[in-house]
């Protein structure tokens, strides 16, 4: 019964809360900038407004253009079903689900980038090129992290890999987890087009990655993109949060509370990073990601006897 409730809560959190985390990020940034900023619920309003609008489509595009939002929405939600939220096992889990989760996100990327090229615009081509370039350097960091967790927990399923390391950890493993947190935080920022990699608030040429890829989308299609971007940020933040949050031992409701507080905290953390760091030059982004890979690789080597 408790498991049933956890699954229901998992689904509700996955579907309803992601725009709120984005709201927290934006509020933090506004606060740092000395502004009031948009209300916390701004992203919800944006998505609702867009879903009710009509579509405007470029005559250049084909059906692939609509596959972009469709695939990215489906894949991020499905990935969200495989990842445990805090101490609660994910609704779906099996040996090797970790690889499926990562490859689902890659599938989404394939179609968003293809949809961008479908418009025939050079701006969107530029965004697509950067997106796929940076992601290919983020993947190894992600997988090295998975390997480390698999080794620490002797499991190949996310629910177990992400739940156990901190509760069983020795001092040495805590050090390794700390390396992973840093590496994955860099991956989180890069994969979700946040500063220092990309500036989500502009689509000027210098920062054209995600925002410029979706320049031609409109109405419900764009609504889906905004929403799935929020879910993707949420899901990838969960990866980092799961590494940190401890099991309270006070039962399910408290674990959920801790998880939600931690998610709010990571939203604030992202906001602080975005407010205090300048955007990197495009050519230095791969260096950031390679550093993340090296940190994770260092963790993996420490575990070799």
């Amino acid at each position, binding site marked *: 019964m408790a498991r049933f409730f956890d699954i229901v809560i998992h689904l509700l959190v996955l579907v309803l809360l992601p725009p709120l985390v984005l709201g927290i990020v934006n509020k933090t940034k506004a606060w740092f900038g000395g502004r009031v900023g948009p209300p916390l619920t701004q992203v919800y309003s944006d998505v609702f407004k867009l879903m009710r609008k009509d579509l405007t*489509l470029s005559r*250049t595009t084909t059906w692939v253009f609509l596959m972009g939002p469709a695939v990215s929405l489906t894949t991020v939600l499905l990935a969200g079903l495989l990842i445990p939220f805090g101490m609660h096992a994910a609704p*779906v889990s099996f040996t090797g689900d970790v690889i499926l989760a990562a490859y689902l996100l890659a599938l989404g990327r394939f179609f968003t980038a293809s949809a961008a090229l479908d418009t025939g*615009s050079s701006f969107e*081509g530029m965004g697509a090129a950067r997106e796929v370039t940076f992601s290919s*350097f983020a993947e190894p960091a992600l997988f090295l992290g998975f390997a480390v967790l698999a080794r620490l927990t002797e499991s190949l399923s996310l629910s177990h890999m992400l739940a156990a390391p901190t509760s069983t950890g020795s001092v040495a493993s805590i050090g390794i987890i700390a390396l992973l947190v840093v590496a994955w935080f860099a991956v989180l920022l890069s994969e979700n087009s946040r500063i220092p990699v990309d500036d989500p608030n502009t689509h000027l040429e210098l920062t054209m990655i995600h925002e410029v890829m979706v320049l031609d989308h409109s*109405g419900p299609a764009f609504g889906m993109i905004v929403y799935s971007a929020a879910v993707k940020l949420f899901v990838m933040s969960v990866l980092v949060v799961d590494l940190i949050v401890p099991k309270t031992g006070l039962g399910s409701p408290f674990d959920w509370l801790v998880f939600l507080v931690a998610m709010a905290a990571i939203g604030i953390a992202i906001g602080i990073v975005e407010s205090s760091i300048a955007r990197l030059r495009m050519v230095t982004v791969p260096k950031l990601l390679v550093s993340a890979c090296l940190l994770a690789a260092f963790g*993996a*080597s420490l575990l070799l006897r």
Partner: protein
Amino acid sequence: MTSLTLVLAAILLLACSGLPSLVFSRVSDTGQRWSFGITLAATSIGAVGAVLTFANDATPELNVPWAVPGGAFHVTLDGLSAAFLVSVFLLSALGALYGLSYWAQAEHPENGVRLRFFYGLMTSAMALLLIARNGLLFLTAWEIMALSGFFLIATEHEKKDVQEAGWVYLVATHLSSLLLFGFFAIYFAITGTLELKPFSEQPAFGALLFLIAVAGFGIKAGLFPLHVWLPSAHANAPSHVSALFSGVVIKMGVYGVMRVCWLFPHPPLWWGSLLVALGVVSGVLGVAFALGQHDIKRLLAYHSIENIGIIFMGFGLAMVGRSLGQPALVALGMAGAVLHVWNHGLFKALLFLAAGAVIHATHTRDIERLGGLSKRMPHTALMFLIGAVAICGLPPLNGFISELFVYIGLFRAYALDARSWPLAPFTAAALALIGGLAVACFVKVYGIVFLGEPRTEIAESGSECSPSMAVPMRLLAGLCFLIGLAPVVVVAFMDRATTDWQFAHHDLTPSLFEIAPILPLMAAGSVVAGGTAVVFFMLWRARKRGTTTYTGTWDCGYIAPAARMQYTASSFAQMLVNLFGWALRPHTSKVHFEGYWPKTNVFRSHVPETVLDQLVVPLFRRTADVFSLVRVMQQGRAQLYLVYIVAALLVLLATV
């Protein structure tokens, strides 16, 4: 026995499949249809034979004396051979069907007959070498395959590019044969026989045999530094021949390495590590080179090098499992490798056939001149897209399944099984990098060729391909979906191939069902496909509403957008090509603008065949220089050679 009889009958029929073309008129398609009929019959019989092998546990064998010293017509049909045979038969049939209209006899009277004759000969030689268990029989079949391959690549031998590709192939393939002759000579010296059967214990000079085999078969497989013949050969052959080359011919190299490793019961750990390391190098550099290509077939050829790398990672893992005594690693590694052999055959053939349809319609292989083809060739575009998603290893298609087996095996090797193997986590990371780069490359080629606006007039003229070209593509795409959505269908085949490869070792390998998430994967695959379909359908309905506005692509307020302003393949890959510049050595011409009225400028970027141009050719030239000193001895006069012989005899007599 019946299954072996069927396969032998198929081999015989395939070898004869080109003969009707010799009899019938050169300007009509009749002979070609007969050839296709025979090929279809042969491959159906053969495929039934191969699949029957999996249905029963027996391993049929036939050993007939052969009037060649040391040779015997010894053939055996075990699970490993049968797994490769399935791929050979399927792709030969589909390639022949595609060839009916792609290389119609009436349109190619000068070389169509030769193409079909050697096509049949090559496919039958491949089938024969897969079941041969005698060294001489194997080498004979190998050489027939290699030489017919040369004639197939040189189909359009009047073109200069084709001649060059043919020469490079011929040199490479004979280097490979030379190494294999060396291999069997040493094998004979050790065992006293040319019959192939596993050693009972690790023999002396085992490492030497292993290294020679890896080099010899690695050339054929296109393993990275030995791949030099592969890109130009694939690019210059007719597309269905490229599909066959990429789909099965290079897999004969993989099969060779697997068969040789099968001989050794207790390989040292470094063998597996070496194979994995070669796989990583091939995989990463293969896809990096692919990113720099503008020639669609050359690009696909480099992806074959990448996928061979993935196959070697899987097989190396199986070898590591054998050395460490970990049956689960053997099962996952072999299943990953063998299934990837199938999968790569399916999606790469699909991609080559779709690329062939594009070339047939536009007469260019240069992707920079194409664009917007999905409007004029919707079927081909869809087929290419399916192939592209599959080759990137993305769910819910087949590439994901085989890569997942390798991933799970690597994670197990590092995390679960008793002794950890240090290469494992870094190999998994390399596989992830390969996956990411493959996505970049296929977004590039699919987007630039099929999406956006046509870049030149030739791209506007494109039209859809004929049914005999479309049907093989549909079948291949269907199979990609089948394996991706229902991996359960391949479990029995992979289990059998693994057990038969492993039998020398006697450790019982677990079934894939026990160690890989077959059923959850089926569910997940269906949910991915179904969920996407539902969401897409919702959006599609929203589009159908009358209120949808159609306009031009947003262009920052610029009033005269042109197709030439689109992002190109070079610009798309530029960042990655520069990041891998240390290996690719791209040639770029800098653009300088001077003065108030700058002149027209041209920018060119090109990734050369770095290994061939900067390593192999200088090496061969240096070698030729050294040996040119000996050339003074060779005057072409009989009396001079007699003097040499007499001198040599005298020296020998004096010393003995």
